[in-house]
């Protein structure tokens, strides 16, 4: 059931709107040269940080479709009836969300680095940090989507919750402290299924 659920969520996530977060990511990156000027000496050093901020803002876009549609349509109830633990559902959703979100973001980071006049080495370092950090970001996104599912104005609330909680990922990712980034990412991956599972249970009325 878990494999089928991941496959289903990847299929549902891989529609025309899959590119939206990656496109939004590039758009945010493209705004920076307009805001601070096209000087490569200025853009180069801030490049990795800008890519990270763009990645965090892009992570906000899919929040409202991660949990709420399945809660409203009774899919989460039916999974519980099929004796799938809510924590397992959350873990499957984290895996599926990462698969539909992170690879496109990593691809979009390449033209993003060009827009920011970053050199190849800086791009490679940022790509590695993003690859390590995005699983934690996906876990955080699913947990927050579950906590806010069913609430009025859930989208805005989820954004307000996600950005502060993603600060550790941002700090260690932008500073390229890969071990600390991996530690934060693992911590989020380990904790998020339990938070999301408890939130799914609490949302049943």
């Amino acid at each position, binding site marked *: 059931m878990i494999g089928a659920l991941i496959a289903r969520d990847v299929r549902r996530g891989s529609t025309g709107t899959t590119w939206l977060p990656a496109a939004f990511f590039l758009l945010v990156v493209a705004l920076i040269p307009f805001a601070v000027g096209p000087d490569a000496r200025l853009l180069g050093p801030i490049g990795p940080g800008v890519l990270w901020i763009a990645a965090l803002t892009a992570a906000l876009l899919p929040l409202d479709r991660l949990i709420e549609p399945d809660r409203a349509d009774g*899919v989460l*109830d039916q999974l519980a*009836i099929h004796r799938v633990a809510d924590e397992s559902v959350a873990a499957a959703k984290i895996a599926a969300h990462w698969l539909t979100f992170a690879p496109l973001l990593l691809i979009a980071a390449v033209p993003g680095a060009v827009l920011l006049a970053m050199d190849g080495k800086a791009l490679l370092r940022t790509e590695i940090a993003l690859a390590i950090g995005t699983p934690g970001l996906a876990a955080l996104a699913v947990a927050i989507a579950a906590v806010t599912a069913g609430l009025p104005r859930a989208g805005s609330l989820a954004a307000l919750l996600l950005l502060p909680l993603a600060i550790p990922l941002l700090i260690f990712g932008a500073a390229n402290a890969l071990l600390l980034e991996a530690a934060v990412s693992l911590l989020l991956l380990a904790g998020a299924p339990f938070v999301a599972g408890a939130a799914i249970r609490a949302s*049943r009325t």
Partner: protein
Amino acid sequence: MRPLLRFDQVGCRRGGRLLFDRLDLALGPGEAVQVAGPNGSGKSSLIRMAAGLLRPVHGAVERAALALADDNLALDRELPLKRALEFWGGAVEPAMSSLALDALAGVPVRMLSAGQAKRASLARVASSGAPLWLLDEPLNALDSDGVGRLAGLIQAHRASGGAVLAASHQPLPGDWTRLELTP
């Protein structure tokens, strides 16, 4: 014989209001119980409690493997009906033909009418192979042909040792033990 569903002194509180209290109920193989009562008397809550989706404030609920059909379709709207049903597993084809859904196998779930969607959710239950069926307002939006087919399905399910708990404010076809909830 072990019952398929057992409520032992169960109380249900929703929104600070006690809907029912000290409720005992046992459903053995072949039995069917209709939960009746006016709007807001706790019929749906009782069904969700039987499904394990709501916790009782006190008392205990024991249940066998079950299938639930309520207002939520729980089928992917963009998929053709047959593929959407297949996600939940079980014997999809016989269940679809017993509810006359064969012709709609390739139709996306979002295109179904309310009555067709109700048949689809009943097909999800019929294909599950679970011994206990929980049906919340199963007659809503069904036409007379659909009601007849549902009655046949329930009869066959009971004959093969299954049990049905249905919540409905209107009379259900066939013979049912009535459980009346008072507001």
